[in-house]
């Protein structure tokens, strides 16, 4: 009898446990609310050097200068943040100031009526708007209205390489796709992985497709997908790009075990600066952490950088680039009037002030403020910053990263299929078929 009672109880516990587990997963965590007190605004942003420290410094300076209006900052790790901020917004617990990437994610907040329209505010405060790069407002604009303040730095994706590795095999950085494919066996023979890649993070793989699509077929190919044209992925240029990337995987172009490498831990950068990989296609934001964590790799002049080379016979302009045209700050519609005032004051007086501009420049970032070019020459990394600035400003088309431009629903499907493509578990044609099904979602 005793045994029976025992097992029934454990069964009930299990049933309850299953239910509760599901329920908890469904609820998610709400995180700190915005508090009842009206005179304190909240601000969530990302962790990670060097940006986290700069963001925190800006908030601290603002708090010091404004004793009556305070901002309480909280920092979250990159991949977790995307989910966290969304859950918080859905639960009505969003911070006053919401840090984001603009584009499709911002649009979904706008569609839900969760962030404030800042068009009028920018019209009244033209000085705030006019000092920023006009190109940075594209991803902040939804249906012709501005819903976010662009901030921080412009971050194109570029091809980093290790000069030591090229010296070792006596080769020059590749000037075309053909040269890339020719370099692969030579680096492999020398025991150096041709390219570092954090494949588990998926958006890292996506950067390769972004460039191949552009270089082969021009920016129109992805634009058609973005516009929701039926069958847009079936473009022959898309198929060509997908095939080329699988060719590179098959030729062992990426570091062994790239599918287990995660970008959040900066393991892909470590592969480059420890000399295990020769090249890495990555955002310019990695420069700061490579300089900080890579010993004398950056300071010793071993890091090379260039725009992605053209593909033979491709239609895309070789000056085109993709990446983040800026980062974005939105104001939660659920915040109190007082909190919103603090946020706007923060936008107009603290965001990208001279100190912050200097801090970004020192860590290898180009702030989206006009006229920062003149400060580049006196910064710690003039050569890299000039390169970033020219890549960004001379690009014929500066496309936003696909996963940020698309809606979160479409982006998830995209990343999922890209991961499978790099796994070689689906063919380019299967990729095209899968993605055509969800076009326009």
């Amino acid at each position, binding site marked *: 009898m005793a045994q029976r009672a025992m*097992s029934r109880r454990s069964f009930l516990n299990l049933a309850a446990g299953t239910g509760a*587990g599901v*329920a908890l997963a469904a609820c998610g965590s709400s995180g700190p609310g915005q508090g009842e007190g009206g005179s304190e605004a909240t601000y969530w942003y990302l962790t990670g050097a060097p940006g986290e420290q700069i963001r925190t410094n800006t908030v601290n300076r603002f708090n010091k200068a404004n004793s009556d209006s305070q901002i309480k900052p909280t920092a979250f790790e990159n991949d977790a943040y*995307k989910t966290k901020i969304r859950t918080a917004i859905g639960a009505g617990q969003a911070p006053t100031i919401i840090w984001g990437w603009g584009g499709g994610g911002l649009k979904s907040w706008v569609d839900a009526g969760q962030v404030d329209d800042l068009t009028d505010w920018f019209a009244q405060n033209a000085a705030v708007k006019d000092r920023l790069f006009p190109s940075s407002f594209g991803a902040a604009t939804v249906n012709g209205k501005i819903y976010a303040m662009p901030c921080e730095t412009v971050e194109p994706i570029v091809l980093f390489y290790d000069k030591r590795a090229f010296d070792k095999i006596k080769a020059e950085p590749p000037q075309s796709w053909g040269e890339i494919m020719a370099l692969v066996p030579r680096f492999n023979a020398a025991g150096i992985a041709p390219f570092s890649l954090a494949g588990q993070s998926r958006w890292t793989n996506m950067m390769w497709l972004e460039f191949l699509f552009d270089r082969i077929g021009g920016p129109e190919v992805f634009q058609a997908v973005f516009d929701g044209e039926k069958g847009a992925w079936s473009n022959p240029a898309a198929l060509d790009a997908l095939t080329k990337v699988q060719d590179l995987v098959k030729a062992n172009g990426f570091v062994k*075990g790239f599918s287990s490498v995660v970008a959040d831990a900066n393991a892909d950068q470590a592969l480059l600066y420890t000399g295990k990989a020769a090249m890495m296609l990555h955002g310019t934001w990695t420069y700061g952490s490579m300089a900080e964590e890579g010993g004398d790799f950056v300071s010793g002049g071993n890091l090379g950088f260039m725009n992605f080379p053209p593909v033979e016979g491709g239609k895309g302009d070789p000056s085109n680039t993709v990446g983040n045209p800026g980062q974005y700050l939105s104001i939660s519609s659920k915040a109190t009037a007082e909190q919103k005032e603090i946020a706007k004051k923060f936008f107009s007086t603290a965001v990208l002030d001279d100190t912050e501009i200097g801090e970004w420049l020192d860590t290898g970032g180009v702030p989206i403020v006009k006229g920062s070019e003149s400060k580049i020459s006196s910064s710690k990394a003039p050569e890299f910053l000039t390169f970033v600035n020219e890549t960004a400003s001379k690009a014929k088309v500066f496309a936003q990263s696909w996963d940020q431009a698309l809606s979160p629903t479409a982006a998830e499907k995209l990343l999922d299929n890209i*991961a499978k493509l790099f796994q070689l578990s689906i063919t380019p044609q299967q990729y095209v078929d899968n993605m055509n099904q969800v076009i326009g979602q």
Partner: protein
Amino acid sequence: MTGLAPPAVRVRPATGSTGGRSGSIGWMALPALTIFVAFGVVPLAGVLLLSFTRWDGIGAIHPAGLDSWRTVLTDPGLPHALWVTFLVMALSWAFQTPMSLLMGVFLAGRQRYREILAIVYVVPLLLSSAALAITYKALLDPNFGLGAGLGFSFLAQDWLGRGTLALGVVVFVVSWQFIPFHALIYQGGVRQIPVALYEAAQIDGAGRLRQFFSITLPQLKYTIITSSTLMVVGSLTFFDLIFVLTEGGPGDATRVLALDMYKRGFQANLMGPASAIAVILVLVGLALALLLRRLGGRDASASQQEGM
């Protein structure tokens, strides 16, 4: 057997207020019931309702009839996720049960060194799944992990980058974490087996192996069922460990049902289909638990020690 003791008499629990000092004790179930309703039944009902809607997590909730169910049930991702879930369940059960059974039997001995070992064995149970996953991930890293560090090329596999290997790693880490727990259950079970049975077997000339298969195993029947129920139903809710270790990857090789639910709900913002999967998860869990109860035999109340 001996015929000296009177046969066991079944005592019917007293109904009503007879015999008790203060009448019904039904109220004692109230706290547990409240918690169960608040955190089990209510959210479940909410999830069921959500599965008939279209919701992106932050906007308005639109009723959508059977749309979500149609999406989920026609998606090839569902049978795949079910299959992966089943594989993780079956493989980790097949690996854990014999291991923990043997370990439990071993730990049931009263020798001092075994008591000390018992404490050592329980350590994995004290670690959080997330920490475990991060540690294993670092150890298995093909470029900076154990294999590369120690120079053993066979350890420097692409552990988490190949479908079958990644599944194997998941099963191994899950088992590594939970074997001590089930070993403890078996240890308790073994210690309850009357020594007289073994003494009788020894007199009859049964060896150790024979004793194990003829006494220990049959006597542990209900312990095995309890432990298996915990393993099987518990494996349905594996999430944290797999999420941190592989994020369901590579591709979707380790995307179990719980992970599929999370990805749809919180990464693709499709709360309707995610809720439908949650409902499926609950149904599968309940069905499995009931099935395992049934496997325990029709007359679960029958004593195994009758006549002792």
